[in-house]
């Protein structure tokens, strides 16, 4: 059976269709979900896409995190459904307290867009199992509020329990503490990251790696999720 993966559109979402495209490219069925509903339509996994929901008013991702469908997302996450938050989606996950810490304005105050090197630190989550721990990948990064912060105790716990999923390599592009680019929860079903795996899933459109626009390193984020669904059944 084809896996059904929900992509939630909020007012101001930008990358919902790219996320749906990535899901289709790995052989699953994307299901468009709406922020104002209370219905996940029985999907097997959920993606919170990038963008600037509600203009990033109040705090990035904050108003979206209080939207109706997020109650269902929190319940689904707590019962083990794979949930991925990309960029604005990562900000929603921390605002919804599904992941610890916070994301603030980039230290240099600029919006940034670059092909970003990452180290996959935890390759045992629902969204990273197709990688190898320590593997270096390149996917696009584009954000204004990507600076990850948490108190020292939280940072120690994240490191001690292996909850850092991705770390910036080469350059820390936004002042994130401990170069943190993405996190997972204890159970490994919820992952949030600032860079955009959904923009690196198709040859000819991804970041430049060994050839021009050859990068497809984001693809395995989605194939990992599909395999984790098979493993759950």
């Amino acid at each position, binding site marked *: 059976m084809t896996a059904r993966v929900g992509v939630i559109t909020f007012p101001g979402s930008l990358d919902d269709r790219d996320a749906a495209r990535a899901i289709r490219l790995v052989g699953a069925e994307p299901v468009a979900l709406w922020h104002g509903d209370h219905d996940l339509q029985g999907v097997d996994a959920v993606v919170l896409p990038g963008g600037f929901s509600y203009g990033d008013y*109040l*705090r990035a991702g*904050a108003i979206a995190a*209080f939207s109706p469908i997020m109650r269902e997302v929190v319940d689904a996450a707590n019962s083990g459904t794979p949930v991925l938050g990309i960029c604005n989606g990562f900000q929603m996950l921390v605002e919804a307290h599904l992941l610890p*810490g*916070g994301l*603030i*304005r980039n230290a240099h105050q600029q919006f940034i867009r670059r092909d970003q090197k990452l180290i996959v630190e935890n390759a045992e989550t629902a969204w990273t199992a197709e990688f190898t721990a320590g593997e270096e990948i390149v996917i696009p990064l584009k954000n204004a509020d990507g600076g990850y*912060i948490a108190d020292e105790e939280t940072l120690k716990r994240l490191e001690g329990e292996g909850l850092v999923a991705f770390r910036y390599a080469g350059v820390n592009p936004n002042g994130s503490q401990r170069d943190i680019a993405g996190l997972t929860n204890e159970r490994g079903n919820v992952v949030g990251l600032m860079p955009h795996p959904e923009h690196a899933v198709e040859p000819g459109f991804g970041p430049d790696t060994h050839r021009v626009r050859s990068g497809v390193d984001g693809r395995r984020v989605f194939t990992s999720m599909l395999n984790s669904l098979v493993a759950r059944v």
Partner: protein
Amino acid sequence: MPTIVVNVMPKAELLDPQGKATTGALDRLGHGKFRNVRIGKRFELEVDGPITDEVKAEAREIAEQILSNSVIEDVVDIDFADGGAA
């Protein structure tokens, strides 16, 4: 209509990139004696009805749960427009 004012600031120990950039601008404009600008938020909430103890409690909850994120910000004061701050 009575108005409740909530002031929120980024936590003192965290980098405030907006404040830092503004400090730099002041310095360039010859106002170098003004240091460590920090930028917070002021919320004004008009209340439909009198400000009772229940309304105050509700406003406090809103300030802490919605208007601020305790990971990165502090609610520094709430002015209930009745001459007393909380």
